[in-house]
């Protein structure tokens, strides 16, 4: 026998308490995703509550959309169905912090900022800094595989997630990975869940690898005359023993947005180490600037906060481009050519990794869709990708925000989804290929 909305409500309230589940019209409207209103907004406080809510939804054939702080709700295709929005911010406990092991276990709703505050006392860090990271939940960062400038040195969630407790589509609580910094026991389940947008399981608890905070840090800006020069400088920095923590490329608009001196393009390089090593490496960066007749400028410690704020705020549309470091200049030219001069384009990115972030004021779907298709054709030559990281519902309806996935891998992805969520309980329709 099926259950009515009323009895479903009773069950949900029995699990999370009256304050944790709401079918209030205003609350549901506020929680709408791409205009689709849920029947319920549920905020579990424990992993067990989370599991039980998912189990009920599964049995009732309801679609569950997990969310954290809501930074990435405009990522991916509009959901096929939305019945229950699961607000995971209530799972906000730091479960276990082992500073001597440089590991921490947190619930998925803990924000990166809240964790940073705790770690800072021990001069440790979880070096994940996607735009707006301070208020983003770690579960959200994991589910979207979001990265920031520090990924150049420390990698992404993929490299830092040691273990994960998650809830499968039918509510079964499952654990993968380990609580120690090194383990190859069984399959690498955490990898499968990072960036999967909750479509194979809803992340409940994460065990993470931490790093010591560098004792000293310095940042300098290299204002450059052209993207070709920027690509050349990046190539030389990469082919050297320098170990920069970050190396971001900023186009003229991004430089202006950050309040930096005007230039065609700028590279901002930061170095973290002991005092002496920072100075020595900075001298090498300055020498590199001099070689291309540019003057390196030392930046204050607040720069990366400004940069983060600019990235988090800029524009209604954000594209994520992945190409090769060796095709950086050509790709930048193509971005400008595709999007035209009046689109209000701001380009930033982790140059040595061939990653660009294109923010646009433009949100006209037809125009954008055409430009994005052109860009996709361009980066396809290097097996790259263009993903709409943020965009209007109309844009993400008029084209696949993920872009094409080759048939071979896509067939395996479909098979995975079919195996673990055949009823489409978890975030249906939002992921690649309509998964």
């Amino acid at each position, binding site marked *: 026998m099926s259950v009515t909305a009323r009895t479903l409500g009773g069950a949900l309230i029995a699990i999370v308490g009256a304050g944790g589940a709401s079918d209030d019209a205003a609350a549901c409207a506020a929680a709408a995703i791409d205009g689709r209103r849920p029947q319920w907004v549920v905020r579990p406080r424990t992993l067990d509550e989370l599991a039980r809510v998912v189990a009920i939804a599964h049995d009732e054939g309801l679609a569950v959309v997990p969310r954290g702080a809501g930074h990435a709700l405009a990522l991916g295709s509009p959901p096929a169905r939305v019945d229950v929005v699961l607000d995971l911010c209530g799972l906000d406990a730091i479960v276990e912090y082992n500073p001597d092991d440089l590991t921490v276990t947190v619930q998925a709703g803990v924000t990166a900022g809240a964790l940073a505050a705790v770690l800072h006392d021990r001069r440790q860090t979880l070096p994940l800094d996607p735009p707006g990271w301070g208020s983003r939940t770690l579960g959200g960062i994991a589910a979207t595989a979001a990265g920031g400038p520090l990924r150049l040195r420390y990698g992404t969630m993929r490299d830092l997630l040691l273990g994960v407790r998650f809830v499968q589509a039918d509510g079964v609580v499952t654990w993968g990975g380990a609580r120690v910094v090194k383990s190859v026991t069984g399959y690498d389940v955490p990898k499968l869940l990072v960036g999967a947008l909750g479509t194979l399981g809803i992340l409940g608890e994460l065990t993470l690898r931490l790093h010591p905070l560098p004792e000293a840090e310095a940042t300098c800006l290299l204002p450059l005359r052209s993207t070709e020069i920027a690509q050349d400088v990046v190539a030389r920095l990469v082919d050297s023993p320098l170990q920069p923590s970050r190396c971001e490329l900023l186009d003229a608009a991004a430089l202006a947005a950050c309040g930096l001196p005007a230039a065609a393009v700028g590279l901002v390089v930061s170095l973290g180490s002991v005092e002496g090593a920072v100075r020595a490496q900075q001298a090498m960066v300055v020498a590199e600037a001099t070689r291309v007749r540019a003057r390196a400028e030392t930046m204050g410690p607040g720069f990366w906060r400004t940069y983060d704020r600019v990235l988090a705020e800029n524009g209604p549309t954000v594209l994520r481009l992945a190409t090769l470091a060796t095709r950086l200049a050509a790709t930048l030219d193509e971005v400008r050519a595709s999007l035209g001069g009046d689109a209000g384009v701001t380009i930033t990115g982790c140059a040595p990794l061939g990653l660009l972030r294109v923010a646009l004021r433009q949100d006209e779907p037809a125009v954008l869709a055409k430009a994005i298709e052109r860009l996709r054709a361009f980066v396809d030559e290097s097996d790259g990708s263009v993903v709409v990281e943020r965009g209007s519902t109309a844009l993400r309806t008029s084209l696949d925000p993920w872009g094409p*996935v080759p048939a071979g891998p896509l067939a395996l992805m479909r098979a995975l989804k079919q195996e673990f969520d055949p009823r489409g309980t978890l975030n249906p329709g939002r992921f690649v290929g309509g998964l």
Partner: protein
Amino acid sequence: MSLTPRFVDEMRAIVGKDAVVVSVEGRMTYECDMHTFYKGAPDVVVLPTRTEQVRAIVQACRRANTPIVPRGSGTGLIGGAMAPQGGVMVSMNRMASILEIDYGNRCATVQPGLINLWLTNAVRERGWFFAPDPSSQMVSSIGGNVSTNAGGPHCLKYGITTNHVLGLELVTGRGEVVRVGGKTLDRPGYDLTGVAVGSEGTFALVTAITVRLTHAPEAVKTVLAAFRTVIEASQVVSAAIAAGMTPAAMEMLDEAIIRAINAGTGAGYPEGAGAVLLIELDGPRAEVEVQGERAAAICREHGALSVSVARDEAERALLWKGRKEAAGAVGRLTASYLLQDAVVPRSKLPHIMREIVAIGERYGLLIANVFHAGDGNLHPMICYDDTRPDELEKAKEANEELLRACIALGGSVTGEHGMGMDKAKNLPLQYADADLNFMFRIRGVFDPARLMNPGKLLPTHPACGEGFRPQRPRLPEGTWV
């Protein structure tokens, strides 16, 4: 099982007759990896040279319902590259070329049979290296490293194999060639590369690998400190990590191993010390200098008998030579030993070392230790005399007890060797039924017929069988039925 002559002819037609081994004698040499305890000869060994051949082999095996076992250099320590159920062994030693080196994008694409160290040899002059450095790197294949997600001394700083694999070309158990990942990052979709690394051939055969190359550091410093006991030395490890140091490697050797290695290579480790800690720092020169001094200071504070720094590349190489050959040099101590690969949180090292000593005494067995102390990855070698029937049983018991102790401390069954036949049975120590079942089902997606390297990684366990239903959460009563 045995294969029909027709099937063997089919193999010959695919790879050529010089690339098929059918003789009893030839096949016998493929019956085990370095863990010689587990034996199982394949019915036929094939040595393909191209991806297309590998695909044809897998498809033929599917038609014949025949197990497929991959093999690289056969240096695994877990009973992985052997055929407990017979079938076809696919030896990758003739797919051993470097396909591309792309310095501009910091990567290289290689065939699976390429020997790990040969990649570094090929890029060293240009100032690069391939970071995963299992102690077997002078012989183990990169395909094998991918299969087991191999680690090595320097993964303390640089991460294990998976952190350096950008893309794979796979021939899945479905018999299809699938390219996952690649030179560009952040591909939309599930991280199939990530989950395939470490799957020990139970998903697919790997036919090409795109790996990250790492630039050589500006400076390297190797500090060697001798201690009275392993417990003292392990306190140094915890202290160094807690002090915010990130050495490139931090290796510990105990007294028995020191003796064996010195007898072999003359590495010149201090005789008579109860433990040696090998700490390597690399990075910007100034950083290495400061951290080297700090490491030395921490060693002295913790009662080191001696602290010395390798003066030149030759001395450094010699210190490492001994360490890298430790597993082989143990041959001088004992003919037979069980090798453990468990991990403990590094802050628990002093605790577990005490436990190991106690277990050794309790069972009357020599337990030699050489391991990656910096990340808590233990390699106790439980030595036994295989001419005495009761000793193996005793060693096995000691082994199990030790493993349970590690797990009880929040550790892991294997840090870098993998599961194979040897550790598959231990998987339930670390994972509950639901977790095991999840893994079992992932495998089914890549290899629905379950012909890829059967009997490895996953245990014989109800949760790893068809139709198993893991425990679901308790739902509120009375709202409906």
